[in-house]
């Protein structure tokens, strides 16, 4: 090979193959170098029949090869045909070992010794080709593999999966799925819990473990691999186990050494950093371009667009606007000041502190899903108690927070560069205060999912958000009269802690004065009365606990433990005491806030000697409800079985007001002390169903309801994630005849959800597309939830945990 190509493309993933196809299309000489003997190894290695998403939906595909959401097989077929049709020059089994030369004359040396010469190089190698390796002795033996293509291939083997991320768990479950394969499967996890994986995967793994299909080893790591054996380092020492095959799923990272050897610089030393890129995707090594996952773009559609664009750039079309340009231009056109999309991107990135760490390309990507808005002086940005979980960043101007709902003139300013709305981001609760623009202001609104991604992936953003939220949390909870300067000392020693469910942050009788702000999750307060722990109250996120001991003195009078996985900010009691001494009005405020709790305490004290039955009742019912997920609910349907006659009118009403599909199952679900928790959505504070929704179709609505919109693709993820089984994948049934024809002539199935037989008999009139269906709390219906309205006896009630896990329950016990 002595010919010199214009472009050498390394890696044939979505980005690389799109680049090659476009180069072929416009007649630029090129070569696509692929390490394996097929295109797009990462997607090729997906488990068979995996459904691949095409996100983000707003982005148009600008490539010469097609792509839309579908099964792995279909997508690979389309690509193979597309690349062939374009006449791309592909060389398989060509792994690049080294790159020398400079712009205009690079030499790529392959592992087989061949060389390829090119004027420019496009690196599209992704990350998956570089899995993190096992480092223990024997880790390089042939029976250690980093992929599992087809779990049904292996029969009657002892197999260990190392690494308990999603990939590892899915592999372990796949291997153990069919008992007929008779595999003995173990999974090795370095930490004590499986927090890195999706909840649904963890739940499935736990089931498999309990059923004896998979053994789990936690706080364990492999220390030695020998043929037929593995040695694990466990908390209580080493153990040697039979092992015919090891599947290591330890994640993947950029092959940084190799990339840096070409003279490409990375944006920082941190492990998750990406190469520095110009807007034209060129690296710091002139003539070498980086696209795709290696550039920090894991989404297939983005990768393919970049493949197209990079070829255009190299071909001299430097002014080519990215695929998102028209979309972004339209989005930003209403803003004052004539700026181009790139100017806006740069402006926002430089002004808003949490965005500082982004490259301009990443910034554009954030703009696709975010909104940039202009607010006039005094315009409301959001109101107190409205629902919203997005994060705002101020690019110019400033806003004011109305901290006292009774007197809107008392405000706290937030200036340019800072953020607001971050409380909703963390706790998923309503907005805590009304915020208005203090002057003409431009702000970027980043949706929750994106903001979480930002926090997870960019360290600067994470630290900034953490610092601001802690400070705000303290100021908001302790109210007026405090300035950031007052709490500087307290803030300096504040500590954010993750609390496991059931873990206590405060113990009764303890001598300790720390104060806790509950940032996420919720807490249960209990006291020991007559030797038994008695449930006192429920504290939702956004509240403070532990201040009683500090204000009143003395020991802790109750135990506070997490109801669900929570996050708290611990404030040092002694430092806070100094603050209290300086601020007597703060003490007064805390005292008045405590009065309601004192009332419950007094009530319990009175009951102590006399009716322990009431206490027991209260206690056990509260525990039952928390067990049923009421603790993480925001609004849950309960049925008082002392009143329920079993007419199922609630279900019928639900079906008749929602396309004929009932979103609740009255009889199912658990019952305790006449209190029945039917299978119906609890509108969780942190909805499990939102965990992995491809099209991002699940939202929280204006009344706090969690609902699924029409972009649902029926992938079933939400159904699997919901621990309460309240989501069904259903088709909309055919339309029924009205009530009068039914009453008079028996036409149609009558009120409620039609039975399956009727649905089948009348199919063809309804929708054929299945959709995830769940309770939407009858959002938008004036009368409120149909199930409650339609209950003839008053048995069906909707409650939120704050008002139910309270004295109301005690009254019920006394009846």
């Amino acid at each position: 090979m002595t010919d010199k190509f214009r472009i050498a493309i390394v890696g044939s993933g979505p980005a690389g193959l799109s680049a090659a196809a476009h180069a072929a299309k416009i007649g630029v000489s090129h070569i696509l170098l692929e390490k394996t003997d097929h295109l797009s190894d990462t997607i090729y290695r997906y488990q068979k029949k995996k459904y691949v998403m095409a996100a983000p939906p707003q982005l148009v595909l600008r490539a010469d090869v097609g792509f839309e959401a579908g099964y792995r097989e279909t997508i690979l077929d389309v690509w193979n045909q597309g690349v062939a049709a374009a006449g791309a020059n592909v060389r398989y089994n060509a792994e690049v070992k080294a790159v020398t030369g400079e712009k205009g004359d690079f030499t790529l040396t392959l592992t087989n010794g061949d060389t390829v010469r090119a004027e420019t190089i496009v690196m599209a190698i992704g990350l998956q080709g570089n899995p993190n390796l096992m480092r223990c002795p024997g880790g390089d033996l042939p029976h250690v593999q980093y992929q599992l293509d087809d779990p049904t291939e292996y029969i009657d083997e002892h197999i260990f999966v190392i690494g308990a991320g999603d990939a590892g768990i899915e592999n372990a479950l796949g291997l153990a799925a069919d008992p007929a394969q008779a595999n003995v499967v173990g999974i090795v996890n370095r930490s004590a819990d499986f927090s890195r994986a999706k909840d649904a995967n963890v739940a499935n793994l736990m089931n498999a473990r309990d059923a004896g299909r998979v053994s789990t080893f936690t706080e364990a790591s492999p220390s030695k691999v020998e043929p037929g054996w593995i040695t694990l380092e466990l908390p209580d020492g080493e153990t040697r186990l039979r092992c015919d095959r090891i599947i290591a799923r330890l994640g993947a990272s950029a092959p940084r050494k190799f990339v840096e050897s070409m003279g490409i610089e990375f944006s920082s030393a941190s492990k998750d950093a990406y190469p520095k890129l110009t807007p034209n995707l060129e690296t710091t090594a002139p003539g070498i371009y980086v696209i795709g996952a290696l550039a920090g773009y894991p989404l297939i559609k983005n990768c393919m667009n970049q493949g197209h664009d990079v070829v255009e750039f190299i071909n001299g079309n430097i002014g080519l606007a990215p695929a998102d340009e028209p979309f972004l231009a339209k989005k930003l056109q209403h803003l004052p000041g004539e700026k181009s999309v790139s100017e806006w991107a740069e402006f926002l990135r430089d002004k808003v502190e949490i965005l500082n760490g982004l490259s301009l390309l990443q910034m554009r990507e954030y703009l696709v899903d975010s909104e940039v808005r202009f607010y006039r002086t005094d315009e409301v940005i959001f109101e107190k108690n409205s629902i919203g979980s997005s994060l705002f960043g101020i690019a110019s101007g400033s806003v004011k927070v109305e901290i006292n709902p009774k007197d809107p003139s008392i405000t706290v300013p937030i200036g340019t560069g800072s953020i607001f709305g971050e409380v909703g981001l963390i706790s998923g609760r309503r907005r805590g205060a009304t915020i208005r623009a203090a002057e003409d202001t431009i702000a970027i609104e980043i949706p929750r999912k994106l903001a979480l991604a930002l926090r997870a992936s960019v360290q600067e953003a994470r630290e900034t958000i953490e610092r601001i939220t802690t400070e705000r949390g303290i100021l908001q909870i302790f109210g007026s009269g405090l300035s950031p300067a007052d709490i500087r000392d307290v803030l300096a020693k504040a500590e954010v802690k993750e609390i496991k469910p059931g873990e206590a942050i405060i113990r009764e009788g303890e001598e300790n004065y720390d104060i806790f702000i509950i940032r996420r999750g919720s807490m249960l307060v209990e006291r020991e009365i007559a030797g038994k722990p008695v449930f006192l109250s429920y504290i939702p996120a956004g509240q403070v606990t532990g201040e009683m001991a500090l204000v009143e003195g003395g020991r802790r009078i109750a135990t506070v433990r997490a109801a669900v996985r929570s996050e708290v900010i611990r404030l040092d009691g002694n430092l806070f005491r100094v603050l209290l001494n300086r601020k007597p009005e703060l003490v007064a405020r805390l005292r008045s806030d405590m009065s309601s709790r004192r009332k419950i305490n007094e009530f319990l004290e009175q009951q102590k000697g006399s009716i322990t039955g009431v206490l027991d009742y209260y206690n056990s019912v509260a525990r039952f409800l928390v067990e049923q997920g009421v603790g993480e609910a925001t609004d849950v349907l309960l049925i008082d079985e002392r009143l329920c006659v079993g007419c199922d009118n609630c279900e019928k009403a639900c079906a008749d007001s929602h396309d004929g599909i009932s979103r609740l199952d009255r009889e199912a679900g658990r019952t305790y002390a006449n209190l029945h928790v039917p299978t119906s959505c609890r509108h969780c504070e942190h909805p499990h169903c939102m965990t992995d929704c491809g099209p991002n179709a699940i939202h929280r609505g204006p009344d706090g309801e969690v609902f699924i919109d029409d972009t649902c693709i029926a992938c079933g993820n939400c159904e699997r994630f919901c621990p309460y089984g309240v989501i069904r994948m259903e088709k909309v049934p055919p339309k029924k005849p009205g009530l009068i024809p039914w009453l008079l002539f028996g036409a149609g199935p009558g009120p409620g959800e039609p039975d399956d037989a009727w649905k089948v008999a009348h199919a063809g009139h309804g929708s054929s597309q299945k959709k995830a269906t769940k309770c939407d709390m009858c959002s938008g219906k004036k009368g409120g939830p149909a199930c409650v309205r339609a209950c003839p006896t008053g048995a069906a009630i909707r409650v939120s945990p704050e008002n139910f896990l309270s004295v109301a329950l005690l009254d019920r016990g006394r009846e």
Partner: protein
Amino acid sequence: MAKQVRQANRSDVRKHEGFLRDGNFRWLWVALALCATSIAAYVMIDAEPRPRGGTMYGYIMGTIGALLIVWLSLFGIRKRVITSGVYSLKAWLSAHVYLGLSLLVIGTLHAGLHFGWNVHTLAYGLMVLVIVSGMFGAYAYAVLPRELSLNRGETTQRQWLETIRSLDAQLREAAQPLDRAEADIVRLSTEQTDISGSLLNRLTGQYPNCSTQRAINELARIHRSTPRGSNASLDQVDALLKRKQETLAQARRNIRIKSLLQIWLYIHVPVTFALLAALTAHIISVFFYW
């Protein structure tokens, strides 16, 4: 503010009260006031020649009564039509119960205690029948759900049926080593047990001919001659049969309560239609043929 009010509608513990005490017995007071006014007027107005439907007072009471009957019968529609507006079926039921009861007073006063063998008294009789069945219904709705819940515990009807099926399978297994006569006893239970039984069985909760009970009795008779412990299979069958009988009893108690919650509707609803017909006949005959 509007938003907060709406939120309160969605979850409000204070609204947690049964249909009889809805809105602090609002409809009870309305009904009592209606009855008291009617009785006071009846006593004060000196109808000539004697109180009956044809007087001015009678016409007024008749109109009120007829309108009430029509409105009360519309409850069936209200229950089945789910509209999106603000309404509470519980309040409707509360009104239905108390105003329905007041109809007894209004209807009687309308007739002026004047009865005979005619379509007018027929309408009255049907009305009383509807109200009495409704009284039973209200009583059932107020009292029985508690029993239903207690009996059900954490289990459901489907689970009982599952349990019975699984016990049957175990019984068949356990009966394998038994001789013919003994096996026939087991078959009596596994093949002939009718869980719900006849309507009378269901309503009374008595199943005197229950095949499982008969099997238990037969087995007890055999046991009298062969002492316990001598035949392990027979003892196992005996234990299984008793477990099945317990589950049956629980399922049947559930069936009984559910039947009681529904049976009255089979009188209440059809008789309401008969009442509407008789009422129409009554009104037409009064105005055209009197």
